[in-house]
């Protein structure tokens, strides 16, 4: 590209998450060295250990739980020209956003049992960290320029974003359901095989890899802006799922979004 900007300084940071998205990016190994020719990677805990004061593009993985994490994110934001939420946790809270359905104390008890909960709650070193925990997506704390969705992110979308930013453009991620990619890839519809799937209400861009691999869509990339949830809930009911099972399905990855969209569980 003749009109390419100078090599941007890129950094990766992780908050609460599994670091799987960073691994997904390292998985671009066939072109990773070419990529490193185009960008300057200044911070990447999974691969190296340098730090730099300013970044052109900061990729932040994981969700924000504690206030000290929020402060760290604000600091990264202040030092970055562009900030990208890397993966489902950073974009919408992902699996851990389920924790927001309960008060921290109740949550602790559900996960670790009463004994452990009691020990933590009476420990002055730990409990202050837990007491006000609320799982937040990055955009609930700072301004986010771009979202790379998915659990983990899609390598082609990552490359698309990097290339577009390199060229002085911006990435385009159409808000289209997973079904579009199933049809493009010739996947047989999960529903027509008698199973159920969240593809119709979930943002695509993943190449429908889960369905292509013989599984179903659990919604890790977040809800479509115009998702017809009422119709989807009814469809799942018609396929024999009860209200609790449906909530379980929606709340696996979509807790951070589903409550806002559907309201409380009146159904």
């Amino acid at each position, binding site marked *: 590209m003749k009109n390419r900007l100078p090599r941007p300084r890129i950094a990766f940071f992780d908050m609460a998450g599994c670091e799987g998205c960073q691994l997904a990016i390292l998985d671009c190994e066939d072109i990773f060295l070419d990529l490193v020719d185009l960008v300057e990677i200044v911070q990447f805990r999974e691969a190296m250990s340098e730090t730099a004061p300013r970044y052109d593009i900061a990729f932040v993985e994981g969700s924000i739980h504690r206030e000290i994490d929020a402060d760290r994110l604000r600091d990264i934001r202040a030092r970055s020209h562009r900030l990208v939420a890397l993966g489902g946790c950073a974009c919408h809270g992902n699996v851990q956003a389920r924790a927001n359905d309960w008060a921290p104390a109740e949550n602790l008890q559900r996960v670790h049992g009463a004994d452990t909960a009691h020990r933590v709650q009476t420990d002055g070193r730990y409990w202050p960290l837990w007491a006000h925990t609320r799982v937040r997506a990055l955009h609930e704390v700072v301004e986010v320029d771009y979202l790379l969705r998915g659990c983990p992110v899609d390598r082609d979308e990552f490359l698309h974003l990097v290339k577009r930013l390199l060229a002085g453009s911006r990435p385009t991620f159409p808000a289209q359901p997973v079904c579009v990619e199933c049809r493009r890839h010739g996947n*047989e519809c999960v529903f027509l095989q008698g199973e159920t799937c969240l593809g119709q209400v979930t943002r695509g861009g993943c190449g429908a890899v889960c369905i292509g691999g013989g599984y179903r869509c659990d919604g890790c990339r977040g809800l479509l802006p115009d998702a017809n949830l009422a119709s989807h809930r009814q469809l799942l009911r018609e396929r024999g799922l009860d209200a609790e099972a449906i909530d379980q399905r929606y709340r696996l990855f979509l807790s951070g979004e589903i409550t806002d969209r559907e309201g409380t569980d009146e159904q």
Partner: protein
Amino acid sequence: MGSYLVERSVFIDWISRLARHEKVYFPLPVSKSSFRFSRVRSRSRLALEDFDDPRQAKPFRASACIPPPVRLLAPDNELLFTFRRDSAGDCHPTPVLDHNRRILAGVRPCDLKAIALMDRFQGDGIADPYYLARRGNTLLIGHDCLQPCDEYCFCEAAGSLSWRQGADIFLTPQPQARLLVEPLTDQGAALLADAGFPACSDVQACRARAAARRPTPFARQFKAPLARVMHAVAESWQSPVWERHAGRCFSCGTCNLVCPTCSCFDVRDDFNVEDPDSGRRTRHRDACMLEDFAEVAGGYNFRKSPAARQRHRVMRKFVYLPQRFGGTGFCVGCGRCGRQCTVAIDIFTIATDLLAGAGEAA
């Protein structure tokens, strides 16, 4: 042109031999219930339905496979051009057209009609050179249907069941595991010339035998002639039917993406990471049921509601394209959209409801 009456297994042998030196595509099973037009590499999975028991081996499912065979002429992720920048920074884009010869075998009447309609659409006005390059080097071997696919099919009502036009060779199942093989074009005749098939002495009788084998009526029927259905759709702009069928719609685009006469596309540019001075533009199947399909740069969406998009999709088949190209509708009655829709929104039902509404209004 002489026709042939040949044992089915002999014909399948011939297809698999042909596939050794030609690119032959045939509906091959990809799972228990689904078939896809795929490149023939061996004889093993080739099957054609039986005259006496058309549903026996269930290859009849192959009749409406996803994606439809017309997609081989306009594939997803199709390369439009490549480019490279020279040392002076000047860019040189070069179109990449696919002139490879290919043979699509086992194309059902509904899909033959869809391809014929796409031939007209793609060749109209400023022609699409990519489609026509592929089409001009593609031979079609059609295959008759003696049984409707299932309860979604309505090919006879849509005027597709007896479609032959565009096929170079046409196959009709016959009793005792035999097949009537009719060349319909010079190219088809040339392909069959040295196949060594026995000649058919009475083509008319063979055709009549197959026609008699079909159930009457064949699959679902509209309650009025197709012309009246098309008229009812044309007059239905304000109909409450659109809203009724949109309530459960996910706007997922599946009905468009499986339709053999949907051809809308989006384009995408990319450059190579390993060599940023080179890259390509590709095109991808798009769908007018998707929310942002008719949105302009300023953000205004000309078909914001699912009902408006549903109406556009159906009107395009029954009104808009027929208006431009005359004659029959662009819905071929293959039933794919209704069959694939997870909430059973079915273009046949929509058209039937509009027809009923028109009757009440009249």
